[in-house]
């Protein structure tokens, strides 16, 4: 379906009207966004996903790859809680791998900035989108990045190792490699052993070049020494992390499994309580939580701003479509974009073009 077809926009506006009826203020964002903000958030990888252009005065600009970032910026600048927003418009994505995927498509979004009851806000967003898909054979997926974060923060190891793991939460391969190394399951590179064996590695240092200073190098060597003398992450904790990452069940069974794990990994207790509250809130909104899938690892490879509840809706696998709707909680993003002060926030988007395809296939 063309992104300019009237039927598509009619459908998109109907969705927006539904969100507005829930109390959302209709808002919008510029197509061209300063590239710097997006690059700082996502890193260089965003260049493979977003279209970049240039203005002689404003420098590098990107065609919005999503609405969330500019909507959060607007809210942090002028908004007050609680607030609900809805928007409709095109987003633009490069497709380096699959030419059949569109480079521009319409999203309709619903974002909730309301910290009074996070579980209720999570359920509100999920239910609002689920409602729009109630006539379609879609499969929901849910997860909770907050449980994984709590598990890492609770590991009995050095702060530096916890920070390194947190930094790579969204890169599963790197995360696993770090966990293996901190758990003593991967050999230390020979070059590092050789460096640390020297009494004074800085003594024979070649001439400095570039911005990185001698003290930065010395500090890193201290950190490496500190790390080499730290105990490995225990096999018990390592196995618990593995068990945690493997949880993939219907929500009530997942909750039971997570409660079992939290007996030995008490740091996830509060986050697991949060999951229980969210399931209650979802049930209160008429969601069949007994059949709702939950996966601890869900959402780990997507864009790295979700830090709590995450969800998606997929059409029949045979249609080979991207998720029809996705969303999640992004409290930390509001802190980054709000210059230190954050607000609890959760939101989701739906793609009317994919809904139409899935309907047509019925």
């Amino acid at each position, binding site marked *: 379906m063309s992104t300019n077809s009237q039927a598509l926009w009619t459908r998109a506006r109907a969705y927006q009207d539904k969100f507005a009826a829930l109390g959302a203020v209709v808002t919008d964002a510029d197509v061209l966004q300063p590239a710097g903000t997006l690059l*700082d958030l996502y*890193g*260089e990888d965003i260049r493979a996903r977003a279209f970049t252009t240039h203005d002689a005065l404003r420098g590098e600009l990107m065609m919005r790859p999503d609405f969330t970032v500019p909507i959060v910026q607007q809210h942090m600048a002028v908004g007050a809680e609680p607030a609900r927003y809805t928007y409709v418009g095109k987003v633009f994505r490069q497709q380096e*791998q699959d030419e059949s995927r569109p480079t521009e498509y319409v999203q309709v979004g619903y974002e909730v900035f309301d910290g009074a009851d996070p579980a209720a806000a999570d359920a509100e967003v999920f239910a609002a989108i689920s409602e729009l898909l109630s006539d379609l054979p879609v499969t929901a997926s849910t997860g909770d990045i907050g449980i994984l974060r709590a598990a890492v923060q609770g590991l009995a190891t050095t702060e530096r190792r916890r920070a390194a793991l947190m*930094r790579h939460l969204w*890169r599963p391969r790197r995360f696993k490699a770090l966990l293996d190394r901190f758990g003593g399951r991967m050999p230390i590179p020979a070059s590092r052993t050789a460096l640390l064996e020297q009494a004074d590695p800085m003594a024979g*240092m*070649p001439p*400095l070049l*570039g911005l990185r200073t001698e003290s930065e190098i010395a500090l890193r060597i201290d950190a490496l020494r500190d790390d080499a003398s730290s105990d490995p992450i225990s096999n018990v904790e390592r196995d618990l992390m593995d068990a945690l990452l493997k949880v993939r069940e219907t929500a009530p069974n997942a909750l039971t499994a997570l409660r079992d794990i939290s007996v030995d990994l008490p740091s996830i207790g509060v986050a697991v309580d949060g999951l229980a509250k969210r399931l209650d809130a979802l049930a209160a909104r008429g969601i069949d939580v007994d059949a709702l899938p939950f996966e601890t690892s869900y959402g780990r490879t997507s864009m790295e701003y979700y830090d709590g509840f995450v969800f998606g809706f997929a059409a029949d696998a045979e249609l080979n479509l991207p998720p029809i709707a996705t969303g999640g909680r992004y409290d930390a993003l509001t802190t980054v974009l709000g210059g230190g002060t954050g607000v609890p926030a959760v939101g989701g988007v739906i793609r009317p073009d994919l809904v139409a395809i899935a309907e047509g296939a019925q």
Partner: protein
Amino acid sequence: MTLKLGVPSKGRLMDKTFDWFAARGVILRKSGSDREYAGAVEGIDGIELVLLSAGEIPRELDAGRIHLGVTGSDLVREKLSGWDQRVVEIAKMGFGGADLIIAVPNAWIDVDTLDDLDAVAAAFRANHGFRLRIATKYHRLVRDFLRENGVADYQLIDSQGATEGTIRNETAEAVADITSTGETLRANGLKILSDGMIHSSQATLFRGRRHGWSQEQRNTLKALDEKLTG
């Protein structure tokens, strides 16, 4: 309809390409004066020589404006997204070898692996307030490589030449560049990461997709294949 064969228009790469084909019974040469970019082919019928910049050959192959082309395997990977869906390697030619690598200052005695680079990038960003800069002209290859290897908190700075000098000039902290002997790197006080080999490149004969080719063109390719495989 002839098959158009794109060959780098000057320098060692052109000479070596001519030698490589000559050893297989296909004589390529520039026609007219040395400055003229027209060519002639002997030893096989139906092939037309097109002389152009090595950097343009991937794009021309992809667009179907040439049918065969000699260029660096690094350039094809850098310039064509999903390159192996778009062109086919016919023969690695065994010259023009160069490695795309990541290098950092010798003084970074704490850095030898990508794991080190990633840790330094995180600390550098915290200390300096911006992401560690890697100068390169191979944006796609470097970005894909670093993503696969889970390196974060870096940025790519475009550098089309004299890349090794960017660190001394404080416009970058590391470089990703091609090297054949490592001499330029050493002369500029840089060392290669032990697991930082992004791509080992060499001159390669590629062909584009064959849709739209005539029977005559297909026959010519077959005849060429027979010559090349001897």
